[in-house]
């Protein structure tokens, strides 16, 4: 599988996906 960080847009999309994941992890951890 190709490393998404080799592509600029793969990097940006990975960052967006990570943002959504972390947001929901924190939101659920805070019980809000």
């Amino acid at each position, binding site marked *: 599988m190709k490393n998404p960080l080799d592509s600029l847009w793969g990097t940006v999309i990975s960052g967006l996906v*990570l943002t959504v994941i972390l*947001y929901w992890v924190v939101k659920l951890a805070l019980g809000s």
Partner: protein
Amino acid sequence: MDWGAFIHYGLMRWLHILAGVMWIGLLYYFNFVQVAALKAAATDNTGAGITKHVAPRALLFFRWAALVTWLAGATILGAHFFDAFFFLQKVYVPIGVGAWLGTIMLFNVWVLIWPNQKKILGIVQASDEEKAKARRVAFLASRTNTMLSLPMLFFMIASGGVFRTSFFGI
């Protein structure tokens, strides 16, 4: 006027944002502009000007801006530094996540990007094989920081006041 609070929250926050704009701005310059420019320049051997005159200057401001950003951020957290980094209070959890992401990024700058860039740019001696390895490590660390900058900036702006309330309900 509370001069302590003015310096602690006002000037330090200003410095944190100024240095942060320089740090992340140069990170985006490297990733969105310079990588593609050097790739294009390799086809007609015109990349020497970038690596000799532009990259060392950009890296100088990049790495010191990263350190100033982190130190100013740590100063703003002050007595709540551990509340944020160890998620000890609910209201400090969002900024704690942002602070951890920023800390990982600072580590990448000083431990992975800068030492390897010194080999790539010929500031320290390295064989062709070492340079090739350094190029890959520095590239992936820089791309990792670009990826991490998205959630880092999100948690920085979503960590205070009405923004935190709207995003996290606390």
